[in-house]
């Protein structure tokens, strides 16, 4: 537990430049979409929540390469394994920190853009981004030692995982607006999150070891 908290604390103070770049892309895309649909406010209203979730997931996919990259390049992962320290704790700490540094700003951005009108939208973005980070971490770990272009390979690996997450998140929004019953979707999103967490903590250490071979 001490190691876990220490890892989160030291990761939180990393240079946020790369994260800011990703958030800047998000803002630019939203402005572009806003300008394009300025003559159709109804279209903007109807598609905004879905667009926000879709863009958030896309932004998370773009950022996944940074998840372990720095630690990989400076030799920290190798050192961690040589020390026999728990790699699962390290992975969980890295994902949580990544989410705190990217997921929380995304939720706040989405809240600002939508005027904090729907708590369900914020919950959807929060769980969808965290779930995608947990699943995408496996792909990120696998791509560390590949000579292929990670900017293409990693989103290709994570896209099939991201689509069900986006469908469930968007489904909860559409269903609420139609029937008002969002509880089953809350449960489904929570369930997906738990499955992703378990899967990630089993598969990610294997993927990191595979990359280190």
């Amino acid at each position, binding site marked *: 537990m001490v190691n876990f908290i220490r890892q989160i604390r*030291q990761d939180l*103070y990393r240079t946020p430049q790369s994260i800011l770049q990703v958030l800047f892309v998000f803002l630019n895309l939203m402005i572009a979409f806003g300008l394009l649909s300025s003559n159709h406010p109804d279209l903007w209203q109807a598609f905004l929540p879905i667009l926000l979730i879709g863009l958030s997931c896309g932004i998370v996919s773009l950022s996944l390469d940074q998840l372990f990259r720095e630690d990989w390049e*400076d*030799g*920290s992962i*190798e*050192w961690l394994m040589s020390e026999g320290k728990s790699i699962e704790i390290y992975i969980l700490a890295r994902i949580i920190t990544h989410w705190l540094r990217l997921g929380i700003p995304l939720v706040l951005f989405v809240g600002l853009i939508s005027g904090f009108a729907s708590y369900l939208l914020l919950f959807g973005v929060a769980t969808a981004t965290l779930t995608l980070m947990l699943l995408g971490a496996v792909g990120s770990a696998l791509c560390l030692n590949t000579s292929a272009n990670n900017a293409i390979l990693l989103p290709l690996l994570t896209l099939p995982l991201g689509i069900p997450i986006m469908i469930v998140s968007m489904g909860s929004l559409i269903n609420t607006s139609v029937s008002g019953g969002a509880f089953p979707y809350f449960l489904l999103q929570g369930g997906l999150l738990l499955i992703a967490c378990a899967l990630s903590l089993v598969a990610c250490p294997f993927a990191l*070891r595979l990359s*280190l*071979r």
Partner: protein
Amino acid sequence: MTSHPILIVSNLTYTYAGRLLFRDLCFEVCPGDAIVLVGPNGSGKTTLLRCMAGIPESRPAIIKNKGLKQSYVGHLNALKLHQTVRQNLLNQTGATSERLMKILLEKRLSSLLDREVRTLSVGQRRQVALARLPLSETKLWLVDEPTTHLDKTAAAHFWEMMEKHLKTGGAAVLTSHAPVPLSKTKVITLNG
């Protein structure tokens, strides 16, 4: 008095990308031993060291004493550039501030203590990474080309520190392309 080995390598075979690096390699590491792995580039020195360090996983051909703790310094220094030397070393070794100060004074690195690693030269970064070895108070040191990037004085300090470690019952396995100025070494030559 005979000393018992703290690590035994028995019949270790390693193939990388279809190329046999070493076959049925056997040796023992006893307290006080300094084992130097030599050989041309690509002969498997680093690979053998990584196998001994348990990277990426421990191997049945490498048997370690129960509870044996080791410190590994590879080619990469494993230092966080945005952190100070103090933060890096305390986080990685769990040493007390007093012990950290003592070791850094011995290594003449105390002036770097509160500097961010990004502001250090390559040689200074290597010295900080090597300072992990005495700080972690482990019996077995595994070091990959320790004196790369070090100036003559820093390299001499490192060998002094290594000699002291061996005299106090520690052991070390290291790779080196340069001559190793230790009083007693065992050399293992790898030919790839």
